[in-house]
């Protein structure tokens, strides 16, 4: 059993027990909602795990650490920031990718930049955003967030 499993199962058990003692029906509703959410993410999750297993088999760790590792410098950050801004990967699916990259030698700073741009900058969804905020504001928000994301990546890299 991994640490994660122990922590999450314990937390889940404690919270469920407290919730159950407070209100049985609410707890059951909560279980159902949680389970439904899990069912919704299960298939895409499996798909991404398959994808990662295949890709990691073909790309040797040396390539990943070359391009995304601690010594990749500006290049690594640029790749991470650009890919993160342009792609539209649902957040929770990107975490196994991030963990895989780190395992294969990518640096925390580069991965943090990738994750943050992925979450905060949306080039693909920009037309949709323009509908709500107008062109100027939507673009400004994305540009500001892009720089913030790079700053976050650098700072997280320093802390880790």
């Amino acid at each position: 059993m991994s640490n994660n499993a122990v922590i999450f199962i314990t937390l889940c058990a404690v919270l469920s027990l407290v919730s159950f003692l407070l209100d049985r029906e609410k707890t059951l509703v909560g279980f159902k909602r949680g389970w439904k959410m899990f069912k919704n993410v299960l298939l895409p999750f499996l798909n991404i795990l398959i994808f990662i297993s295949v890709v990691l088999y073909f790309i040797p760790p040396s390539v990943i650490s070359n391009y995304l590792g601690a010594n990749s410098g500006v290049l690594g950050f640029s790749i991470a920031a650009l890919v993160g801004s342009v792609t539209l990967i649902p957040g929770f699916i990107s975490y196994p990718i991030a963990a895989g990259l780190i395992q294969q030698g990518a640096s925390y700073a580069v991965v943090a930049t990738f994750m943050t741009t992925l979450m905060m900058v949306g080039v693909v969804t920009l037309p949709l955003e323009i509908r709500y905020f107008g062109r100027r504001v939507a673009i400004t928000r994305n540009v500001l967030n892009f720089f913030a994301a790079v700053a976050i990546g650098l700072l997280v890299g320093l802390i880790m």
Partner: protein
Amino acid sequence: MKGFLKKHGSYVWLTAFVILTIFSFMLGFNPGKAVFTNFTQSFIEMITFVPFLFIIVGLFDVWVPKEEIRKHIGQESGIKGIVLVVLLAMLQAGPLYGAFPVAYLLYRKGASIRNIFIYLGAFSSMKIPMLGIEIGYLGIRFSLARTLVSLPLFIGIGYLMERYLKNKHFEIRDGSQKTEVPHENYSIRMRT
């Protein structure tokens, strides 16, 4: 055929993977076996914590009065207002484009420009279900560092946007007016 693909299209990868794995084992194809070993490891890692995380999220969903918080947004200003929008954002799920309609609602309710952009920032990267998965995969240290570095920057962006848009008659539209048709080919549609 088209209907069939639409309904079962998302299972294509899984099916192909299962079939290829079976063949790899039958024929002794080593790369196939290695990929399967990789997959098994990451699958076990996932299945031992993600379902429990979602049950926790489900319980949160029933116990935390989201509507109650939403009611107070717009009335509270200053630090309290910021805390409320961040809290509301953390309780959400879904991709960022799902936050735009909520931003419109907040705008209609009188939330300040600053708080609307803080909401978007917090929504993009501090949602509880996502933090849970992040902690599981990248560790609590990474998660904490990222969140604590991000939050002040979001608040800063909120202030910047507010200054930038002052006296500019900024308004948020409900999204029904077309300026451009968005590319709505989100093949993987999720709630988290």
